[in-house]
């Protein structure tokens, strides 16, 4: 137990990220099921309008910040050091700090479901209710007097610190800890996409930090950053939010693209088609992702120039994305394909992401976007991208790397059940939403009338949602069963080309008994140009120094939620305690003897 609490081992932190994020994924999923149950029939009355607002806000916030980002982070942690031939990340204790901040931030946000009585709210739940985008000036104290928005903005500030710390850590790890011979253009595609993602994190998160800080000053100290009467414009929030929010979309999808770019070659037994182009289009997506944010704001009325510019950039960004899709298809073409569950999910990713991408291009055009804004059409789009895309990609990664992480293979039979249930479920849940939206049903409204003519489609969507839940249940059964019944994986169950497959599953604490020297992009494969590398010996020829654990990252992390409690409860001494804890943690951390 102590060794897990103080761990600085990237593999253990990766597992902690996985299980924590998966728990939040289940919570976010339950929120979605309640929403769908409410909308199964017209004039539903399962939950009140207030609770419904909290459900969709927390569903979005949880899935983006507490499920998808940290599930990707679990692979960054576990897989990236293995893929580049490193013994750990560059800053192991900072890595532990990122995890603890994430966990505490997630608990802080979700505590809002249960602490209503403490705030004399009259209900149990005082969860955030302003949407995951929290548009000003709805979030001002005047319109949202309760603690709901406070939980949201303080929770997101905490989580931002976790992401930023991890961002710096992984950039340095990937640039500076590569094994000898692993030049940048030999780095596996997943690690490349991780690098691009981290650059987006460290540049996008400061912007939302500032936007949230303004909101904090408005709500707690009576400032007027988003107050119309004081001459301010609430549109400022929209710009700051989407300046962060659109790169955030790529933060969510690029890791999944990286996973798929590693899974497809393994199961087609062919090198990734056009590796360089896949890498460069990933980098290009990262850059262009910064130039499209205002397409979320066409309905604001930005004027013809801004509309045209952002419409054009949005259509342009489809080009590098399309390039990647063709590369993936070409990787499969003529390959010696093995239809594993991981491959099913990877191919499912491509198919679903194409649908999401196509509906995305439709709202790149302002006139059509004005029809679609705030309707279920947009909900359909983001779920094809983030569920059909990111979640499918992440599951491809789970089935692919779970044997590496635990030493046991997940059941392929249950895996196929999981895939087909999820695939059918998600299309049933989200495809009708295109029509529901175009027929005029607005999003974020807790019920609808039968006259709208979307009752059957909504029922279909709800059935799909519960099918997805069933598929996740099958996955959980698979996980549990694998603990005891799973087939032993050995070093390399798939015949993978990259370094993580050259060592034991799960890897020893030092990863590589001897740091490998890399001579090409597919070190473990025999190609017409080279022989496969020799795997490192099972026992290290020389003793290997492994850094010990540390309590101080966790202590420092505890300072942040305490600091956040101060404005929430209007208690000054809590701020002092929080700052003291944070400072104590940092000083003990800085002066602790710790040899990396």
């Amino acid at each position, binding site marked *: 137990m102590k060794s897990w609490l103080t761990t600085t081992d990237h593999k253990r932190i990766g597992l902690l990220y996985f299980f924590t994020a998966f728990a939040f994924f289940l919570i976010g999923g339950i929120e979605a099921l309640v929403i769908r149950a409410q909308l199964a029939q017209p004039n539903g009355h399962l939950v009140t309008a207030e609770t419904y607002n909290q459900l969709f806000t927390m569903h979005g916030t949880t899935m983006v910040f507490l499920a998808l980002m940290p599930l990707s982070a679990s692979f960054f942690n576990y897989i990236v050091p293995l893929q580049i031939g490193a013994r750990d990340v560059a800053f192991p204790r900072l890595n532990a700090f990122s995890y603890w901040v994430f966990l505490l931030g997630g608990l802080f946000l979700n505590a809002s479901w249960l602490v209503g009585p403490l705030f004399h709210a009259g209900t149990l739940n005082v969860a955030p209710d302003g949407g995951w985008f929290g548009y000003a000036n709805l979030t001002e104290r005047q319109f949202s007097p309760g603690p709901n928005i406070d939980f949201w903005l303080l929770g997101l500030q905490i989580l931002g610190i976790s992401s930023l710390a991890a961002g710096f850590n992984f*950039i340095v790890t990937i*640039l500076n800890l590569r094994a000898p011979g692993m030049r940048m253009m030999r780095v596996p595609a997943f690690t490349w996409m991780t690098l691009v993602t981290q*650059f987006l994190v*460290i*540049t996008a998160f400061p*912007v939302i930090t500032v936007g949230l800080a303004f909101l904090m000053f408005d709500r707690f100290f009576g400032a007027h950053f988003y107050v119309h009467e004081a001459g301010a*414009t609430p*549109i*400022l929030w929209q*710009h700051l939010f989407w*300046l962060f929010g659109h790169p955030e979309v790529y933060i969510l999808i690029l890791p999944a693209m990286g996973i798929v770019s590693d899974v497809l070659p393994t199961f087609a037994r062919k090198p990734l088609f056009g590796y360089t182009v896949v890498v460069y289009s990933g980098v290009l997506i990262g850059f262009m992702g*910064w130039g499209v944010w*205002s397409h979320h704001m066409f309905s*604001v009325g*930005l*004027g013809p120039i*801004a509309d045209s510019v952002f419409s054009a950039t949005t259509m342009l960004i489809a080009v590098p994305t399309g390039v990647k899709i063709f590369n993936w298809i070409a990787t499969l073409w003529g390959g010696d394909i093995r239809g594993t569950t991981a491959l099913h999910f990877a191919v499912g990713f491509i198919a679903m992401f194409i649908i999401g991408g196509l509906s995305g291009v439709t709202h790149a055009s302002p006139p059509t976007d004005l029809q679609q804004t705030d309707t279920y059409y947009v909900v359909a789009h983001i779920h094809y991208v983030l569920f059909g895309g990111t979640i499918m990609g992440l599951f491809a990664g789970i089935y692919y790397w779970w044997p590496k992480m635990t030493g046991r293979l997940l059941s392929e039979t249950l895996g196929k059940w999981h895939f087909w249930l999820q695939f059918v479920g998600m299309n049933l849940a989200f495809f009708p939403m295109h029509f529901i939206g175009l027929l005029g049903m607005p999003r974020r409204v807790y019920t609808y009338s039968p006259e709208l003519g979307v009752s059957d489609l909504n029922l279909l969507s709800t059935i799909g949602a519960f099918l997805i839940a069933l598929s996740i249940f099958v996955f959980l059964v698979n996980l549990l069963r694998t603990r005891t019944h799973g087939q032993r994986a050995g070093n390399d169950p798939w015949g993978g080309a990259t370094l993580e497959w050259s060592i034991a599953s799960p890897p020893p604490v030092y990863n590589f008994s001897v740091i490998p020297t890399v001579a090409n992009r597919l070190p473990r494969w025999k190609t017409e140009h080279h022989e496969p590398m020799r795997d490192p010996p099972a026992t290290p020829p020389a003793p290997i120094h492994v850094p010990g654990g540390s309590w101080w990252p966790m202590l420092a992390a505890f300072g942040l939620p305490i600091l956040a409690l101060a404005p929430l409860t209007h208690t000054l001494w809590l701020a002092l305690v929080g700052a003291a804890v944070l400072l104590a943690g940092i000083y003990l951390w800085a002066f602790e003897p710790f040899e990396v």
Partner: protein
Amino acid sequence: MNEHSQNEHSHPTADVYLRVAAVLVILTVLEVGVFYVPVFHPVLVPVLLVLSGAKFTLVVMFYMHLKADSRVFTFLFGAPLLLAAVVMVALLFLLLGALTLRGAAGAG
């Protein structure tokens, strides 16, 4: 120890540091000077931007050693800085446009 010997070669001497400081002081005096001289008022903004840009560059190049240091550091700093500059221009264009329109509509 190894990194120490590298630093001695790539870092400027105290003499260079002092000369840069002298230039920085002169530039600051100029900045405050043009602020008070009425002749410069029509071109105040561009002159001030150039002067502060020069100070910014001097500190980054010499005090933060970017001139002689690895290009990786230049990229890690320069790319976000460039992005930041573009974002600022875009935000000013988008938001000042919006606020001006609102002001005009209010006046009308």
